């Protein structure tokens, strides 16, 4: 039992639990946006399990592939793989197994749902991590597209098709991800430079990056608002969403006008809260 606990403690950091939880939340919100107020508990469980496994599997595969650059960055050097606490083979096996089971369950539940989950996994591991991450700063677009797949998958599972609202929800996540990732890459730009990973701050400079963050925040808010209208969200909820979006926009502009580490970090944290809040409103 102790051995198992020790293993779980080693594998747990590999799945980036907070990020996985946030993506899982978007998937559940996508489904509930179609089925509210009535949801099917067994389907919700299947959705949750398949998403959790495939997102975790995908994250472990990313960690497995990026273990060499993780070892070069102070922030990530203590992760189980670069620290030598787990062997690459163990991580690869775990990642493939989880991803396979996750996609398998998803495909068994619904073909479109399974296909979207697989597409998310493919874009994240193959296109983003293996192909583009070390070549171009624009790789985050593919990271964003894969991040938008859980909510699209959840919506597709609920409606049985890929509709405009699902695409708007996916776009909201796609445009929100630069706000999240770019503030992070500004905070840890020296780490990324040391590891040789091209980022927006190292390729285009800080001011351009802040401009991209501001523009993507506006687009994320517009897409989220459009999806809210499409879902038929009540005016009160739309007002609250507009207020939360305005907060995101004000912070994004503040990072451009008066850049500082504190405001940048504030935007990073607020962006996560914004997404959680928006998902809650979508499900209500």
């Amino acid at each position, binding site marked *: 039992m102790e051995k198992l606990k020790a293993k779980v403690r080693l594998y747990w950091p590999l799945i980036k639990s907070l990020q996985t939880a946030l993506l899982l939340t978007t998937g559940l919100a996508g489904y509930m946006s179609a089925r509210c107020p009535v949801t099917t508990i067994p389907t919700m469980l299947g959705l949750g399990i398949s998403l959790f496994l495939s997102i975790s599997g995908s994250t472990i595969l990313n960690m497995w592939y990026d273990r060499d650059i993780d070892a070069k960055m102070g922030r990530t050097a203590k992760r189980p793989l670069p620290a030598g606490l787990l062997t690459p083979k163990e991580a690869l096996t775990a990642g493939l197994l989880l991803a396979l089971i996750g996609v398998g369950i998803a495909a068994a539940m619904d073909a479109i749902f399974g296909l979207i989950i697989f597409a998310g996994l493919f874009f994240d591991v193959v296109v983003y991590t293996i192909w583009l991450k070390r070549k171009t700063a624009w790789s985050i677009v593919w990271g964003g597209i894969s991040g938008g797949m859980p909510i699209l998958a959840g919506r597709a599972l609920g409606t049985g098709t890929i509709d405009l609202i699902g695409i708007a929800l996916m776009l909201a996540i796609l445009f929100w991800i630069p706000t999240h990732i770019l503030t992070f890459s500004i905070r840890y730009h020296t780490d990324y430079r040391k590891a040789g990973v091209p980022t927006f701050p190292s390729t285009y400079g800080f001011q351009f990056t802040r401009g991209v963050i501001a523009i993507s925040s506006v687009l994320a808010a517009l897409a989220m608002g459009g999806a809210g209208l499409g879902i038929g969200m*009540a005016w*009160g909820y739309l007002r609250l969403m507009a*207020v939360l979006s305005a*907060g995101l926009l004000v912070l994004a502009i*503040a990072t451009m006008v008066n850049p500082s580490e504190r405001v940048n970090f504030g935007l990073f944290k607020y962006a996560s809260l914004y997404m959680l809040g928006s998902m809650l409103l979508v499900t209500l």
Partner: protein
Amino acid sequence: MKQISILDRILLLATGLLAAYQIIVGVEGASTLAQTSFTITFGVLLVAGLLLIILGFEALDSPVVVIVSTLIPLSLSIGLVTKYFAEFTIPYLIFAIVGLLAIIITRYKTPGKAAVMVLMVVHGISGLLIFSLPIVLALRGVTNGGFALVGVGGGLIGIGGMLLSFLKAGKPILSRDIILTVLPGLLLLMTAAFVAGFALG
């Protein structure tokens, strides 16, 4: 500087949740302009609460704080005037816009006595309105008695806004640490008074 504590964060979160609730339910019978004004009031309270939780009291070092702390009484007073004294909407809206612009301009272009004077006038008038209007309306029977609670909230926000604004203007009424100690509780109390007042009114 005083560090933000767990209790402060809980009080600010409660403030944010109450403000979010008020934004969702809105104010019954309010016109679009009044509803928008009330949304700005509670939206500023919500976002400010979240930012204080995330960034701590250091967020209050920003020069924007003076403008934000003015925005709350100004937007609330616009909402009240528009809803209950519609004939004064345009003149008061002009006063509010000019007042806000004057605060922004004097803060950045001519800081000092002029900035403090402008702040006193705009804060004073809007604060007096949000304090007295709900109480007068409740006493006259135009609204239910519970609406007077909005006035109580107005009084509390007047105190909080003045404390913050004068602290930022370099003329503190109380020490910074005392203001930061009472601020989260004050924000929660006034938000609760607003929400209760609108619900009972």
